[in-house]
């Protein structure tokens, strides 16, 4: 992987040239190639935008290719030879489960810009693990509440991996109504003909699905061509900016839940959207917003405390003293977010397919697993 190393080295030179010896060294392991690359690239770009020009923060970036074994190797390399202080970047829950417990056990801080598996929010919580995105169940718990009473019988579909199971568990926890069927697909599956046939044959009134990245594109295009006309909804991952362009009109009208949207009217958000567009020539997604907030959180802690003083640095992180592009943001006792979750609808603005906020699905939402965490 000489090319990737070269790329990583370039990033170090570009963003860390002015780093001082007492700055924070960040190791970012994220998905930059393969089926989930769009998500990792957005997290990376959002993060780099937030720490741009900050001489205290040096970033090393590596591509995990969405493979747990590669993520583990990269984590070892970052901890042992790169001597990073803080790690971040992982998109997928199965990779997070492979990397995070080992990294925190070795005294490193881990800031999750995306994955929020239930195991790390409850019994497996750790004082050095901070989740800046959500716990996996969060969007679906909010969606379950928002759809209760109007969706009828619901057909659930998600990939068979920790996040897929968490997200469906979240929906079932809050949805007041009948579940028509529950289907788990392969992670990375691209053909949904069999599942769509089951949807057609079922007596469900609505489809609720979680398929991030390319999986969501494939499903929505195939669903649109199948003639099945049950309404669809899901957490924002299935309808995010990075994939709406490829789905096209098939997604218009779909409801989804998220903690952020580009039209969210809070201080700093419009500036973030404009700066991201200026820098990268595309609209930011929720992943970009999460990467950006992760960068802001890290910068806020680095300005207050020396990372070598772990207790002070941890306390500085815990304060979450930064202006989130989501508006209010704080950490619960288990270092997972307390935040509002909105209901969004996919709309067409001219030629652009995008989301707008149509309501609030949950206020000051925090996850139910914190009760098992002994922090």
């Amino acid at each position: 992987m000489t090319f990737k190393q070269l790329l990583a080295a370039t990033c170090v030179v570009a963003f860390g040239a002015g780093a001082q010896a007492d700055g924070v060294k960040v190791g970012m392991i994220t998905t930059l190639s393969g089926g989930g690359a769009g998500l990792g690239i957005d997290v990376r770009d959002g993060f780099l935008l937030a720490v741009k020009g900050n001489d205290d923060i040096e970033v090393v970036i590596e591509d995990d290719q969405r493979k747990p074994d590669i993520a583990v190797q990269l984590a070892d390399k970052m901890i042992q030879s790169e001597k990073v202080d803080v790690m971040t970047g992982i998109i997928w829950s199965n990779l997070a489960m492979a990397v995070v417990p080992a990294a925190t056990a070795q005294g490193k801080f881990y800031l999750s810009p995306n994955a929020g598996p239930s195991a790390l929010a409850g019994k497996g919580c750790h004082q050095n693990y901070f989740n800046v995105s959500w716990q996996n169940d969060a969007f679906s718990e909010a969606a379950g509440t928002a759809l209760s009473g109007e969706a009828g019988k619901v057909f659930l579909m998600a990939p068979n991996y920790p996040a897929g199971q968490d997200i469906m568990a979240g929906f079932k926890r809050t949805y007041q109504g009948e579940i028509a069927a529950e289907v788990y697909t392969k992670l990375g599956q691209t053909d949904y003909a069999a599942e769509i046939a089951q949807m057609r044959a079922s007596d469900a009134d609505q489809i609720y699905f979680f398929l991030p990245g390319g999986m969501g594109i494939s499903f929505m295009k195939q669903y649109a061509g199948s003639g099945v006309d049950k309404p669809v909804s899901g957490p924002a991952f299935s309808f995010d900016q990075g994939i709406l362009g490829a789905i096209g009109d098939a997604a218009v009208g779909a409801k989804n839940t998220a903690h952020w949207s580009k039209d969210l009217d809070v201080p700093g958000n419009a500036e973030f959207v404009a700066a991201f567009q200026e820098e990268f020539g595309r609209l930011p997604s929720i992943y970009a917003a999460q990467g950006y907030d992760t960068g802001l959180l890290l910068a806020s802690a680095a300005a207050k405390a020396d990372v070598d003083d772990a207790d002070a640095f941890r306390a500085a992180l815990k304060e979450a003293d930064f202006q989130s592009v989501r508006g209010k943001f704080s950490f619960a006792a288990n270092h997972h977010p307390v935040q509002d979750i909105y209901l969004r609808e996919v709309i067409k603005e001219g030629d652009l397919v995008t989301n707008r906020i149509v309501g609030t699905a949950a206020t000051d939402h925090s996850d139910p697993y914190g009760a098992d965490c002994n922090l």
Partner: protein
Amino acid sequence: MTTLLLIEQVLNGLQSGIMLFLMAAGLTLIFGVMGLINLAHGSLYMIGAFAAAAVAAATGSFLLALFASLVAAAAAGVVIELAVIRRLYDRDHLDQVLATFALILILSEGTRWLFGSFPLYLDVPSVLAGPVTLPGGIAYPAYRLVIILVGLAVAAGLFLLIGRTRIGIQIRAGEADREMIAALGVNISALYTLVFALGAALAGLAGALVGAIQSVQVGMGEPVLILAFVVIVIGGIGSIKGALVGALLVGLTDTLGGVLLPLALGGIMDASSATSIGSAIASMLIYVLMAVVLIFRPTGLYGTA
């Protein structure tokens, strides 16, 4: 589970099998004739899909897009064969794996450099966008039906090409004895370039056809490549007939297994764990199928030792 649903699922299995056949045919041809393991076959599939998406975006015509996928993948195939593959015929398989793996990285990064990291938009033509009603009242997506027909037509064409034409005779002869047909005056290196381009074009066509209902993105060829290797191992290396039968077996097993296993397990455990355990087992089914075939026929269904 109703009969109609079962028939629809069988059609789905056929359709995914036919698509796999387009990939596996090229792979098995190249392996059979030239003895070359080409890991970069999935990249040619990706090139076909990207070419189709780019041309469809520029012209709005799906037929032109399909044509572009054939031309682009075949042209990429010729360039790759002349520049790299040609040097690998006499090397052992490990060298071939290493070199063609490097090609995957180069082609993926090259595609990313040209088109960016985000998936491209390629839609099915509007006439095929909806479902059609088949006899018996099954509503089935028109586009998938067309994929089945196109795939069957390509399969028929391939059998005619290999079995009935002069060039087919040369290809089969090259498979049996390379030195002898060279001595008979056949330009063996031109023949190899042609076979490689043909295999590449088939992969490119599959990429474009599938890209319209899935996502056109960097790395889309790799998962298909693994399945295509399973197909040629089951069918027997070098056999087009084996590739067809193997692809249909894999397509049907994969589709029907994913639907029927969770249902079957639902009888003995609660619905939620039945679906998650059932789908976990279902994703292993094609490898179980491969193992079973290899136990009884170590060279594959139609393979010759």
